[in-house]
């Protein structure tokens, strides 16, 4: 087999840049859908660690609750979905 061609990554003008690291992608996802840093109406700020937030997201998505940013969790975060948060506030 020939070694895979070294494909060049190009920045496309007008592209909504989504080149984030996996950790950045996860952090953004967990915040956007209410798993992290949710501020409640009563002002109560539930400080949830990223690992705990990951476990909650994994439970919501029916994934194994590892609390780790594993492959299947990362894949799930890249899937097209509804914009409504999973943790309502």
């Amino acid at each position, binding site marked *: 087999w020939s070694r895979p061609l070294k*494909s*060049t*990554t*190009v920045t*496309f*003008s*007008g*592209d*909504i840049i*989504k*080149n984030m690291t996996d950790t950045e992608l996860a952090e953004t996802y967990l915040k956007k*859908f209410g798993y992290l840093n*949710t501020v*409640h*109406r*009563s002002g*109560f700020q*539930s400080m*949830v660690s990223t690992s705990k937030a990951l476990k*909650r997201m994994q*439970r*919501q*998505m*029916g994934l194994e609750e590892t609390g780790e940013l594993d492959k299947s969790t990362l894949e*799930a975060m890249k*899937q*097209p*979905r*509804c*914009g*409504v948060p*999973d*943790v*309502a*506030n």
Partner: protein
Amino acid sequence: YKTFDGDLKWDHNNVTYRILNYSPDMASFLIDDAFARAFKVWSDVTPLTFTRLFDGTADIMISFGKTDHGDPYPFDGKDGLLAHAYPPGEGMQGDAHFDDDEYWSLGKGPAVKTLYGNADGAMCHFPFTFEGKSYTTCTTDGRSDDLPWCATTADYSRDKKYGFCPSELLYTFGGNANGAECVFPFVFLGNEYDSCTTEGRSDGYRWCATTDNFDKDKKYGFCPSRDTTVIGGNSEGESCHFPFVFLGKEYDSCTSEGRGDGKLWCSTTDNYDEDKKWGFCPDQGYSLFLVAAHEFGHALGLDHSNIREALMFPMYSYVEDFSLHRDDIEGIQYLYGPKTGPDPTPPQPDSTTTAPYPDPDETDPTDEPEPTEPTTTTTTRPVDPTKDACKLTKFDTITVIEGGLHFFKDGHYWKMSSRSDKVNGPFSISERWPALPAVIDSAFEDLLTKKLYFFSGTRFWVYTGKSVLGPRSIEKLGLPNSIQKVEGALQRGKGKVLLFSGEEYWRLDVKAQKIDNGYPRYTDVVFGGVPNDAHDVFLYKGHIYFCRDRFYWRMNSRRQVDRVGYVKYDLLRC
């Protein structure tokens, strides 16, 4: 399934909707039809009816938009977020927004309804063959007027069935020209345009004049996307140009080269290296019907489900022969009840009955039969009257027994009579309930049977009057052995009790003496705004109390935190 906090549902069954604008990806007829079918998903299983309005304000205002589209939640370009919707209510509440950087279809590639031709508006058949060549998109081959067309069967040469594809040369949509086709070239702000443009607009939609001079006539319409139109990128509405050159290599079809996300793109000129004009190639697209049915679920009061096969699951997946999952049906019927006969005229709830409380864990606590005042109070002699409850900062547990608040601590308890606002005690636990240990983690009175349940560590006792059953292990109830202690108990509806431990809670079916399926759930996901490590949870006078240290968070029947206060001053009246 889940519903939104605070009992969010429409207070009428004849819900109205209005389509404010259209996506260029599909003919407006197809979009109208997709939305109507999406509403039918819900009207088929509830008394709800959906009426379309063409002006004014409807309950559910539907619109397409891109990135920042006028609310605090911008979309994110192609893929990622597809759409969002707001729970029922006034103003923007109830509205549904769809990301128009997506490629909207019926979920299986370009949904192209033909016009004119000889196929009576039939949909294009992809692939089709024409003069020995196979086509997966509309084509202008065989024509000199640049009008895109397609066959409506697999083989044009045999069946000769065809129609024209969406093109700005045939029609426009929206605007003020009643769908008239574009006129090229046209003048706009003194400049001449030979094709549709986004100039003069901030929402990225392509438009054209329907006369040769917009400056003079002000007549315009929006340009439908051709099925070969690229999506997103910086050439909205242009078509791929094949072959094109990229990094010095020639490409005859879409490629994912140059991208890390594997998405297929193409250049819209013959040389990307020089012109940098590009866009994503049309793919299967997202089913507007499926996404709309999901979003309308939100607009009716359903939150996300954690059942992967349910429509209200947050992630998109295409389903060929769609039907609502049982979980979705249970959720929507929890809010609006089942469909009632052919002509749903559900009995309007009279003022005394309260609307069903929107969550399977809950019925409105104020619905609970208030425990009757005790006819015979068991008088036990108070021990060491110097033990003053007001000197304690934290109790082992607080609960309501025979209508009065009881405060337990280290083998003693104090009683707040529901008549007088005065606390009596301390009394000895062992005198009244001899089988119990000194430290009680939580307790509750089953409102139907008047049995008293006491929890301490991993054991529990059940008192019926003076007779007791226990101690037994809490695993007997179906609680996991990982639980160290039960810290709170909350009667919910007839014969259901929520048992809290750590950051989670389980629902006990008291009659079956078993934990219900679908638990545990995270406390702060369902009871937003209270500490998720409360050491005590109880129901008192229709409110839910979460206690931590000296404080309590009080939640009303709409699951809103309506007070935070001191146990000592507000509950013990010290």
